[in-house]
């Protein structure tokens, strides 16, 4: 890995971590788990398209680990990790079908996957199937938040189209 590439990965991880922590400090809009913007996702997407799969994985998983430690909410770690692993797997799997112009679509699909994963983890952790009633609202939240973060990453990627890392 070239030095420039390594440094970029580190910077993106730091940015993802900061945005994650700022977002964690803002009181939630609704009393429903999992409804948030997920701005940190912008940096994962950017890393995936600009740098590569390994770098994106580093940005995502280091952010989840450090974010859970820094916010002191280890309880959210298991949910973040479940959602993170599932959405990242989908992201890597489907990336080839989505050119830079359609990063927003990939992002929306992955955000939905993320929320579904978290909900699944919540069902397992509480042993209560009724929590699945929250599925529709989490799918909507995922599509809206994913589209937004995807567009953010997409706009930057399109501006830097001819850049090499």
């Amino acid at each position, binding site marked *: 890995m070239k030095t420039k590439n390594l440094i970029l990965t580190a910077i993106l991880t730091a940015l993802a971590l900061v945005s994650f922590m700022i977002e964690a400090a803002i009181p*939630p809009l609704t*009393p*429903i*788990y999992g409804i948030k913007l997920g701005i940190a996702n912008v940096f994962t997407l950017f890393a995936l398209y600009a740098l590569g799969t390994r770098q994106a994985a580093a940005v995502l998983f280091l952010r989840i680990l450090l974010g859970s430690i820094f916010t*002191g*909410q280890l*309880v959210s770690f298991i*949910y973040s990790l479940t959602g993170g692993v599932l959405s990242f797997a989908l992201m890597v799997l489907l990336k080839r079908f989505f050119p830079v*112009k*359609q990063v927003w*679509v990939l992002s*929306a699909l992955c955000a939905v996957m993320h929320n579904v994963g978290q909900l699944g983890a*919540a069902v397992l*952790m*509480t*042993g*209560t*199937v*009724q*929590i699945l*009633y*929250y*599925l*529709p*609202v989490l*799918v*909507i939240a995922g*599509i*809206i938040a994913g*589209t937004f973060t995807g567009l953010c990453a997409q706009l930057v990627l399109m501006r830097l189209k001819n850049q090499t890392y």
Partner: protein
Amino acid sequence: MKNRVWIIILSFSVLICAVCWLYISNLSPLSQIVGIYQNGNLVEKIDLNSVTERREITLSGEYGKNTVLVSNGHIMMKSAECPDKLCVKHGELKNGGTPIVCLPNRVVVKFEDSPDGADAKTGAVR
């Protein structure tokens, strides 16, 4: 697929989910019997109609205590020591489709005999 196709697919999904959510968040409970669960185990089953005086039920979990307030026809999470307090912000348990959930302490308060009939775990009303 073109962007336009995706816009249609995703908007349509949002629409369908919105309809489902409207339906779910307005499901009326089939009875006034509620169950308080922790770690998937029943802690207490209460018929809200037969509650005569207000009382509090305290549960302790990994992240501190949860206090459930029960009065005639009403149940809510009065206070909690969990980090996010989303269970308290939920307010009163209103319908069969949206249980009160405290993820950190793994507490769930929900109406029994919910429309999906999931009551197998607990058996009869205590």
